[in-house]
């Protein structure tokens, strides 16, 4: 198979684009595509300060690499979740993120959940009803809260995450199966800034996960290959596998699914329920918006942890 640009040996074939490229042209094509997406959705400009949520995985590190190659001002934020599970998952992810930042002369901010809030993600999950079976939902709440807090407190204009097309299509698939209208309404490449919430963007949302992987490999980016031990067997991975089966038979299906959803949303297919929007109010503790009256779920979880730690210390 030959590179469409130069006729050299192709190293990546993208059936959905009917496009095969050599290493050199693929490594030019990915940033060019990302730049197009940034401009198309008005994500940010070169004058704005970007905070990239960096997990140590291929997607977030590739995003950070692409943004710095494109000349954007992007710092990284690594959140230490305290997940060990016998493979030092968090410690290894942090090492990789720190090495990447050092090698590229980039600024990485590190926040460790245990140090900041007195308990790791598995410990918080253990103490709360929500996460007892599986800590993923607790992890999601904590990460969203922390990313938003750091972005606002440190004066970043925008928070960027490494979500790729497969992430977006599988989330969309799950939300469609359950007709989760509120989630469908909020899913998109850009979540505009609202009182208490920083603008959030997903510059890789139109790149297949496989393309991001190829980019990471070809750029020689070291990333954590092991799956988060708690994500093994997760529903999102199951949906990705199902979508890949369809993609295999109908190349382009995942991209069409996502883009037609964005078109439908733009055309008003998912109506805004204004009374629900009006019910959002700031948490009295952290000021981030919450749907239920009183403290937000993050602050309630942390309160519980603080109380448990206090009782434990008292009984010693």
């Amino acid at each position: 198979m030959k590179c469409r640009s130069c006729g050299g040996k192709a190293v990546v074939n993208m059936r959905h684009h009917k496009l095969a490229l050599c290493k050199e042209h693929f490594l030019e094509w990915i940033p060019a595509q990302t730049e197009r997406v940034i401009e198309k959705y008005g994500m940010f400009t070169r004058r704005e300060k970007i905070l990239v949520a960096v997990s140590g995985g291929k997607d977030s590190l590739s995003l950070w690499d692409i943004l710095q190659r494109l000349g954007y001002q992007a710092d990284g934020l690594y959140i230490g979740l305290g997940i060990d599970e016998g493979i030092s998952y968090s410690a290894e992810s942090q090492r990789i993120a720190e090495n990447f930042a050092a090698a590229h002369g980039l600024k990485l901010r590190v926040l460790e959940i245990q140090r900041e809030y007195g308990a790791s993600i598995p410990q918080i999950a253990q103490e709360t009803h929500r996460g007892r079976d599986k800590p993923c939902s607790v992890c999601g709440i904590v990460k969203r809260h922390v990313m938003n807090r750091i972005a606002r407190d440190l004066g970043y204009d925008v928070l960027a995450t490494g979500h790729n097309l497969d992430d977006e299509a599988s989330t969309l698939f799950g939300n469609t199966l359950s007709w989760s209208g509120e989630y469908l309404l909020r899913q998109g490449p850009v979540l505009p800034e609202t009182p208490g919430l920083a603008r959030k963007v997903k510059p890789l949302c139109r790149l297949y996960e496989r393309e991001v992987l190829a980019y990471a490999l070809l750029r020689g980016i070291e990333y954590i290959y092991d799956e988060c031990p708690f994500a093994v067997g997760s529903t999102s991975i199951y949906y990705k596998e199902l979508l890949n089966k369809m993609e295999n038979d109908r190349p382009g299906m995942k991209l069409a699914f996502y883009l037609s959803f964005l078109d439908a949303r733009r055309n008003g297919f998912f109506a805004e329920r204004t009374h629900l929007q009006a019910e959002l109010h700031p948490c009295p503790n952290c000021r981030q918006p919450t749907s239920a009256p009183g403290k937000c779920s993050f602050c309630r979880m942390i309160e519980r942890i603080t109380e448990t730690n206090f009782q434990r210390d008292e009984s010693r």
Partner: protein
Amino acid sequence: MVKLILRKQEYEVRPGMSLRDALKKLGILPEGIIATRDGELIVEDEILKDGDEIILVMAISGG
């Protein structure tokens, strides 16, 4: 023979097959992986040679 490795699982196919046919025979979807040989990325029409060791890198991650 040709050895293909996905995570810690090893598979063998006969030489002379294309990567596409090898993956089909093993029931592995090309959409979910990138194949490498000696550290270089290869595409589906690559003919696999005797003694090749193909590392299949999983693309899917999530939680």
